[in-house]
């Protein structure tokens, strides 16, 4: 390698290095701001520079948040997540099985309709669903959220699960059929156990989106006993508009469950999101 190409090589590496670290900083700065501010006192925030480290490790913000209603929001989020996810996984497994395995007349059009539902914007259905939940008397309860969450995550879930099921060798099913299993037993005893990795992927992908959902939660619930974690931030913000450190500590705490999940299962999470990302 001559000197010229060596210099070129090094300068390319340097440029890439600068860009990579630049993006790292861009990603990290808001989080650093959040953490620094969360440990500051309100006057400290107003007087000092943004980049000053907190003078003391001031924990009162966090303690105040934990003393507040944060656990109610957290509990609601967990219930909505568990219930919606369970229904969603069962329904999408059921729907994906015939679509990936059976030969019947309307297989393809039915699949096409489900996939087309992926592109329906949530906001077209927001007002009608709001009116429907009021009529049904479940407005302002966490149960109002389950239906929309299941329905709007169903198309992508079926889409992903069908590809998973198509990859399972047909022979297993045929062997079960020869042994006298009907379709239902094959589904429960053969398909479901084999498609577990697919279900795990779905749980991760949908879990993140349900956990963070905002539009429906804002529209279909109104009071504390039924609001989920994304709304907690919204409400604390209304309560402490000028108290930036307080809001930043709420943000930090609301992110904690996700960060903990990420620390323990980052490989699975990234893989799950990758499988979901290929939906296009």
């Amino acid at each position: 390698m001559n000197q010229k190409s060596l210099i070129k090589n090094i300068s390319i590496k340097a440029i890439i290095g600068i860009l990579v670290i630049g993006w790292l900083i861009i990603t990290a700065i808001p989080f650093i701001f959040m953490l620094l501010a969360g440990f500051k006192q309100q006057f400290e925030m107003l007087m000092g520079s943004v980049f000053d480290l907190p003078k003391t490790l001031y924990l009162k913000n966090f303690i105040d948040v934990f003393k507040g209603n944060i656990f109610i929001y957290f509990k609601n989020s967990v219930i909505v997540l568990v219930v919606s996810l369970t229904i969603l996984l069962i329904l999408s497994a059921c729907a994906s099985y015939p679509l990936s395995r059976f030969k019947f007349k309307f297989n393809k059009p039915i699949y096409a309709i489900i996939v087309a539902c992926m592109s329906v914007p949530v906001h077209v259905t927001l007002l009608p669903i709001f009116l429907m939940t009021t009529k049904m008397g479940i407005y302002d309860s966490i149960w109002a959220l389950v239906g929309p969450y299941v329905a709007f995550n169903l198309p992508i879930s079926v889409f992903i699960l069908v590809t998973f099921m198509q990859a399972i060798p047909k022979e297993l099913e045929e062997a079960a059929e020869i042994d006298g299993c009907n379709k239902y037993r094959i589904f429960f005893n053969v398909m479901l156990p084999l498609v577990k990795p697919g279900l795990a992927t779905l749980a991760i992908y949908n879990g993140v989106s349900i956990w963070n959902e905002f539009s429906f939660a804002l529209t279909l619930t109104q009071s504390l006993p039924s609001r989920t974690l994304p709304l907690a931030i919204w409400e604390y913000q209304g309560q402490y508009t000028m108290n930036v450190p307080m809001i930043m500590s709420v943000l930090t705490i609301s992110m904690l469950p996700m960060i903990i999940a990420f620390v323990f299962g980052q490989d699975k999470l990234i893989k799950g999101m990758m499988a979901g990302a290929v939906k296009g």
Partner: protein
Amino acid sequence: MQAQTSSLAKKRAASTRNAAIIFLVPAFVFLIIFIAYPIFYSFNLSCYNWNGISSGKDFIGLGNWKELIGDTIFRKAFINNIIIMILSIVVQLPIGIALATFLDFGGKKFNFFKVIWFIPMLMSSVAIGYLFKYALDANSGIITGISKLFGGHSIDLLGNPNTALVTITVAICWQFIPFYMVYFLAAYSGIPSDLYEASTIDGATKSQYFWKIALPMMKPAIKSAIVLSMVGSLKYFDLIYVMTGGGPGSSSELMATYMYKNAFASQRMGYGSTIATGMFILITIISLITIKLLNGKEEV
């Protein structure tokens, strides 16, 4: 004998069909109640003048639609949506591809970068919205902090009608670039690894491999990313609602925030539904045209 087998086959087909129906019905119940029916309901509501509470609805036919066509704020919101859409595609996809390429070339040793870059994907839009709202705050934000470091004034990016929309777009890009990074990383994993090996044996450099092999191979993925990004930007809501609420004035108003305001703040359910339905129609038309254009180019 033959009749027997054919009736047996028929019976089998019938039992398959019945099983298919039983497996599919529960999913369709949800799709019909929460997606199909609301779309029709929304169309229906768009023909009424109604505050959402009183029992009587005034049927006004196409009155709301006429208002929508002449509504300058809706037009402004639509243009804002288009601006966000263009900026999103132009900024998010290339950076997403660049980050994915870097990670793909680097393999396991760059795992640290992947983990950090991924984190915004786990945050809710509300959290990101408030994070940026306060990080860009005129009194205690980062930009003001930097400006003060150099003896400047406080800078209010979100409070200024000229900069609000672009500032929000920065936050949107920050939120979604990790998604496209992961998306293109998945696309990379779909490219057989022997292609890279073969190209290096033939003496291709990394950049030649990227431009001549990887990028053309990812063309379908890029196309879907464009459609995805378009549809996403046209229905954008959460972040704007949290950061500016469409303001100042209507400088960062989007179709979805305008709809929400009409339906709930001004209690105009009918007109809100008209905006929502209009949005649905516009998004469908624009995405169909784009898909047609993108696939049409292929054949040329």
